[in-house]
């Protein structure tokens, strides 16, 4: 740029050139130059300088506004054209829009799900400063065996004193008790929490002061719906509610001191009935309050000063444990490591962010972050497939319009204008698809909620961030999808389009690639869904080794062993005459069990955790567990109190030969083995077969005595309602005032798979949807191809081709694509599923036959979808299409 002072600054001119249309810019720039030079002559360099830039500043706004106005007028025109082109190809456009709408709806739904999952616990004001203390349980060699989200009770407060990075500490423990008010009683999760609970966590109050509400010893805070449940319309503040521990018999009154708004669903904490942590003492848990080696099931949370606190606390943890845990560790080393000599710490500790808890599989009922990841992947796949459809169909459709484009160019449409036209056309369709998509979301949301066990509402869907996401998505797809056909179609010279030289769709390599990719993705998805379904069914239907059906557990709620025995006999008296009740028995645990650390059996230098179940003599019979050596317990032999029955795995693990008659040492006592059962699954399938022991002698336990807790009924499959009623009324008679708690064994097992089933549902529906969308695409593509080749078909007919021959001719392409896709997809699917199945100890074997049947099914589906159209074309009268030339 020359620094000749008589030229106006080039930068300013460049700006002008950008915003004024090409035609006018020359003149405009000339006017500016002239004005500039006049000013230079009359006013001099400096003043002209300011004048110039001031002019530029004043000039820009009106021109931009005018440009926008002009573009919007243009877009009105484009939309008219878009509408026209849509109505000229109603079916294709409909398919297109609908396919994309479905894909978008899917993506939106999955996005909502993910957003909800990621939003857990973020509503607390201080959520990013709250951490949970975790405990790492170590093996003797120092490696971490497992991690727990809880920590011993005195740990939190001690750590708060020890470290100056911690503001406050709140311990929590949800326990199930019976809550009672005026004869209305139910099992509830009672949430024990330290006084500062409402200071740390944000649960807005309807009535009551967050800071003081838990100060009184016997105060309770209820959530709104629980207040309504127990007090109806009365004001609960100041009134009494009774909490009853049916395990130990303690009953305590609490005065309601506050009401909070119902906690939101995306919360890992469920404070529905909150009482002060100290009250644990009232229910018999007092002896653990100062114990360093007892780890409860309730978590401890701390609030830290700032972002760096976490690191500093972790760094200083070893001095903390040295100060407080030395005695406890010694004790634990003996218990946990047995005779293995080790000086490693049996426990170490960590801090987990509150916001991360939900996505950590160690928390109960939570999702895995990997699952969220996979789900996003599925959403993207579906969207991808739908977008590919859109592109293919748009392009194929546009092929018909080459003539129109040629004419437009001749008449003077600029290349940029044409591109804009196509982009706005495709955006128009995308816009329609979005509106339709949101409509689909609205309609299917309840169904989706059922599938994923959540409660998303439509208003959630329309929140600001969602709308931004959707708008962004639409624009993104619209532009990308519009660009491709736009660029392709504006290239050819007008003359050549007249000559009909440019064909599109069908044989194009890009199209083939896209279609094949679509099918590869959907087939893989389908295979995954099928495998997932088979695996889940396998797990559910597997033989557990005992009778699953028609077994009812009834929780006895007896305070101690004597009461339990008495109740047991009373129930047997009342109900053994009932014809529908085949057998009555009792046990300490329900099957399948969660934890099996009841007792220890020593084997040489190490020990084994075993699950001990306290039963009565009819138990094994009722549950259909077969004894293959020795005998069952007998009510007549009083010595059976000192006897145990074990399972095969125990015998094998302890290497006992001829077990019947031998003695076995369990913890501190000796027992006689009188029988051996077949193996069965004491715990969930994935834990394999655990060694199990059955005994009839009540045992004191760490916190629960091993005694009868459940009545086990085997009932007949007929008239279950009546049977349950009979049991119910007997309960009311024998345990008035206590709520009844019964469950079916097979339902318990099914419930364990709820999460898995939820995943299966999502994957299954996604896969079906993607297949449908892909088929929709092929359907549309075929119709375009038929259109294009109408003349060819007619000519062939005239020359004597049969309908069948034409059918094969046209469908050859689709078949080729699907087959290629299958060849690629089957191995991929096989590999991926194989890897995934490694996660399961008990798994199905992948059968290639099923995979191939799958591919075949898809092929048939595609042929059916397209066959109809092809048939119609093949049967058409050739004269009609050859006529207009």
């Amino acid at each position, binding site marked *: 740029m020359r620094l000749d002072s008589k030229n106006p600054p080039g930068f300013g001119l460049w700006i002008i050139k950008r915003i004024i249309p090409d035609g006018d810019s020359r003149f405009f720039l*000339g006017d500016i130059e002239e004005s500039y030079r006049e000013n230079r002559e009359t006013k001099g360099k400096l003043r002209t300088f300011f004048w110039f830039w001031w002019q530029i500043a004043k000039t820009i706004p009106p021109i931009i506004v005018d440009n926008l106005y002009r573009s919007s007028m243009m877009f009105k025109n484009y939309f008219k054209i878009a509408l026209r082109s849509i109505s000229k190809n109603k079916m294709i456009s409909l398919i297109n829009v609908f396919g994309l709408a479905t894909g978008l709806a899917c993506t939106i739904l999955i996005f909502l799900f993910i957003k909800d999952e990621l939003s857990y616990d973020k509503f607390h004001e201080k959520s990013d400063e709250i951490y949970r203390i975790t405990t790492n349980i170590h093996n003797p060699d120092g490696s971490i065996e497992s991690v727990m989200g809880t920590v011993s009770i005195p740990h939190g407060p001690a750590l708060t004193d020890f470290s100056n990075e911690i503001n406050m500490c709140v311990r929590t423990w949800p326990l199930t008790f019976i809550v009672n008010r005026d004869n209305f009683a139910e099992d509830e999760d009672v949430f024990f929490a330290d006084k500062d609970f409402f200071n740390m966590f944000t649960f807005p109050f309807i009535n009551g002061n967050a800071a003081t509400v838990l100060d009184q010893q016997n105060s309770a805070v209820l959530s709104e719906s629980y207040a309504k449940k127990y007090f109806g319309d009365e004001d609960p503040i100041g009134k009494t509610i009774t909490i009853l521990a049916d395990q130990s018999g303690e009953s305590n009154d609490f005065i309601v001191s506050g009401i909070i708004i119902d906690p939101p669903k995306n919360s890992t904490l469920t404070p529905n009935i909150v009482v002060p942590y100290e009250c644990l003492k009232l229910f018999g848990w007092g002896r653990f309050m100062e114990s360093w080696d007892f780890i409860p099931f309730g978590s401890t949370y701390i609030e830290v000063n700032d972002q760096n606190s976490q690191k500093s606390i972790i760094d200083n943890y070893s001095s903390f444990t040295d100060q407080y845990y030395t005695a406890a560790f010694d004790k634990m080393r003996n218990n946990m490591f047995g005779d293995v000599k080790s000086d490693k710490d049996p426990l170490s500790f960590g801090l987990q962010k509150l916001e991360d808890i939900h996505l950590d599989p160690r928390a109960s009922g939570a999702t895995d972050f990997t699952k969220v990841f996979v789900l996003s992947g599925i959403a993207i796949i579906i969207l991808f497939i739908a977008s590919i459809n859109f592109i293919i169909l748009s392009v194929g459709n546009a092929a018909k319009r080459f003539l129109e484009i040629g004419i437009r160019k001749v008449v003077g449409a600029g290349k940029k204008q044409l591109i804009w036209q196509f982009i706005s056309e495709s955006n128009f369709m995308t816009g329609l698809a979005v509106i339709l998509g949101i409509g689909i979301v609205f309609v299917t949301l309840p169904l989706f909620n059922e599938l994923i066990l959540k409660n998303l509402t439509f208003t959630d869907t329309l929140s600001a961030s969602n709308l931004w996401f959707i708008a962004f998505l639409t624009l993104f797809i619209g532009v990308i999808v519009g660009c491709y056909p736009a660029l392709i179609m504006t290239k050819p010279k007008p003359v050549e389009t007249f000559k009909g030289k440019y064909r599109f769709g069908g044989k194009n390599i890009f199209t083939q690639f896209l279609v094949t990719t679509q099918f590869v993705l959907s087939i893989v998805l389908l295979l995954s869904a099928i495998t997932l379904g088979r695996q889940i069914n396998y797990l559910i239907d597997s033989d557990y080794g005992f009778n699953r059906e028609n077994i009812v557990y009834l929780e006895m709620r007896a305070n101690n062993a004597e009461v339990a025995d008495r109740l047991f006999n009373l129930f047997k008296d009342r109900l053994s005459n009932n014809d529908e009740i085949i057998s009555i028995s009792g046990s300490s645990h329900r099957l399948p069990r969660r934890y099996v650390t009841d007792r220890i059996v020593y084997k040489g230098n190490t020990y084994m955790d075993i699950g001990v179940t306290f039963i009565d003599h009819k138990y094994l019979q009722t549950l259909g567990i077969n004894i293959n050596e020795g005998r069952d317990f007998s009510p007549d032999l009083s010595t059976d109190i000192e006897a145990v029955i074990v399972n095969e795995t125990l015998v094998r693990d302890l290497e006992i030969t001829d077990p019947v008659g031998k003695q076995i040492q369990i913890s501190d006592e000796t027992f006689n083995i009188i029988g051996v059962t077949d193996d069965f699954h004491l715990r969930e399938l994935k834990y394999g077969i655990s060694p199990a022991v059955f005994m009839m002698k009540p045992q004191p336990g760490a916190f629960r005595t091993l005694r009868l807790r459940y009545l086990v009924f085997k009932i007949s499959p007929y008239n279950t309602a009546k049977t349950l009623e009979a049991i119910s009324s007997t309960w009311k008679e024998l345990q008035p005032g206590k709520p009844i708690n019964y469950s079916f064994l097979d339902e318990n097992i099914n419930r364990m798979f709820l999460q898995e089933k939820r995943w299966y549902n999502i994957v299954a529906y996604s896969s079906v949807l993607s297949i449908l969308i892909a088929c929709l695409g092929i359907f549309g593509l075929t119709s375009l191809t038929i259109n294009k080749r109408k003349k060819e078909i007619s000519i062939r007919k005239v020359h004597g081709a049969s309908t069948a021959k034409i059918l094969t001719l046209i469908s050859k392409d689709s078949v080729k694509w699907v087959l290629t896709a299958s060849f690629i997809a089957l191995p991929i699917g096989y590999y991926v599923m194989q890897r995934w199945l490694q996660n399961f100890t008990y798994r199905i074997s992948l059968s290639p036959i099923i995979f191939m049947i799958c591919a075949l099914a898809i092929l048939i589906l595609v042929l059916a979808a397209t066959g109809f159209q092809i048939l119609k074309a093949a049967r058409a009268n050739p004269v009609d299409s050859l006529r207009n030339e």
Partner: protein
Amino acid sequence: MKILTRHEEIVLLTILRLKDKAYLVTIKDMIKKYMDRDQSFGTLYVSLKRLKRYGYLSESVGAPTAKRGGKAVKYYRLTRDGITALKTIRKLHNAIWDDFSEIADEYTETL
């Protein structure tokens, strides 16, 4: 016949007065002289385009000069429709502004 805005009115009248010499720079200077207010290039440009679209102006291209860095000039002239539009506005104006002085004086008495 579109009702002209004040701004458009002024532009048209200026062009009329400038006879054959009406282009962006001259129009801008004359308006400045009359109104003592500086119109920006941008607003003028947009008005001119709009007036042309209405059909009140016609354009012609003139010879380039060195002063313009070698670029040609775009001259504007009123069309018949433009004149008619101005006349219509004038009539409207007259009708509304008729007797203005008397009415205004009467009115100020009452304030």
